[in-house]
């Protein structure tokens, strides 16, 4: 037997059409490739004394 309260917590309000625009602007659209590229680029750069600190 599951808990009704816990079960209810799983339900979140669905997005309305009028909220869609805000959702698009607020979302971070960086994908995995961009993140990995960012990490790879940072790795290739020589570390500065500040980074070591």
């Amino acid at each position, binding site marked *: *037997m*599951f808990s*009704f309260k816990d*079960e*209810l917590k*799983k*339900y*979140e*309000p*669905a*997005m*309305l*059409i*009028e*909220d*869609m625009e805000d*959702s*698009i602007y607020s979302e971070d*659209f*960086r*994908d*995995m*490739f*961009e993140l*990995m*590229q960012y990490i*790879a680029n940072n790795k290739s750069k020589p570390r500065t004394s500040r980074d070591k600190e």
Partner: protein
Amino acid sequence: MKCPVCSYIFKSGNVCPGCGTDIVLYNKTRNISDKLYNSGLKCAEERDLTGAIEYLSRSVMVNKFNTKARNLLGLVYFEKGLVANALREWVVSSNLDKKDKTASEYLEKLQKNARELEKMNDAIRLYNLAIQYMNQHSEDLALIQLKKAVSYNPKFVDAYNLAALCNMANGNNTAAEPFVKRVLYLDKKNPTALRYLQEITPGSKVTPAADLNTKTEDTVDEIKARRKRRMSYKNLEKGIIGKPEIISFAGGVICTAAVLFALVFPTMLENKSKEIYDLKTTLENYQSYNGADGTVSYDELVSENADLKSEVDKYKNAVALQTKIGNINKAYALLANGKNKEAALLIKDIDISDLSDEDIAIYDTVRESTFASAAEDLFSEGKMYYLAGNYENAKTTLNECLDLITDESYTGEVLYYLGKTSEGLGETATAISYYEKVLSDYPNSAQAVNAQNSLDNLRSGTGTQDPSKTSSQTSNEDNQQ
């Protein structure tokens, strides 16, 4: 292969010849994204919407430019009833890849059905409201909102799930079951629904998959039955009617006719008979009516008609009298203007029996002043017409002269010329009667001899036939006299 940094296109190798970028990472992420898309597509084809969303979300997370995955993700959201999520994916997709028209087409279709879109949005609004009600422990109100939501959007999976939960919270598992089954029909492997199903039927060994298969089979059967029905309707539309249909139609007609004869016609006949009887009674009442109830009887109508007729006659007489008086006054005025002949002709036929003394006095004045002179004028005029051979006018004028004449000294002459005119018109008998009258009534007349000669000629059959000759002869006779 296209370099993601400089867009240089090359066939093989992991390093871009254009900018020297190592594209191993790029290739790997792209492959992962495509694999996830394939898995998502497979789930979507199997109607596992939750699984499809899971895979496709990861696919676009790995490679945001995978517009195919994003479009499909939007489609799956839409199928689940989450229309705003679907729109978001399609908007992003159409912006990331301008060449791909799929997302634009989806958006265009939705815009064309703005009313449907609004209903779907309303369904979401009601679902959100239901969550609020449930948090406030108002399950009944929540259930109402959810039922309304699924009526607006019958594919709203989350609403069905929440409705099932609502019923389960009230301890009404039987009511929850159809909602769960509906969810599993829409989204075969929906984990929430599967959990609820286990909760509702704890002892049952029916696995969700088996349940779903049954559902699928049912659906196939339903589809087949629907197709069969549609075909039969089409056949009916084409006019191909089978024997059973004809027999049942004929049976229906016979039954209807039997019911009409047994129930409706006797009642109709009875009503008609009653109507005829009522009309007969009314007619008899009218015929035997003596006018006691204020309406008019036949005798009264006859007497009233007679009264009205006499009244009309009275009015007619009054009008005639007024006309006579008017003519007398008019004649008096003509007399004053010296038009004696016109005045005399106007009053010559007036009957003075019903006139007042005053009117008679005027009449007498006009008569005395005009008749003699008018008769003389008319005689001269008639004679001129006769001499000119215009017998018709001569006849009319001389007859008018006879009406007005007061001096009998030339009446014989007038009659003689009337005889001559009649002779000219070929009316021999009339001419003879005129000549005879001259001879009998006015034997001393100046034209008595001529009348005798003319009479003799007519009797001997040598009457004056030539008008000109007659005219000259008469003129000579006149001259001699």
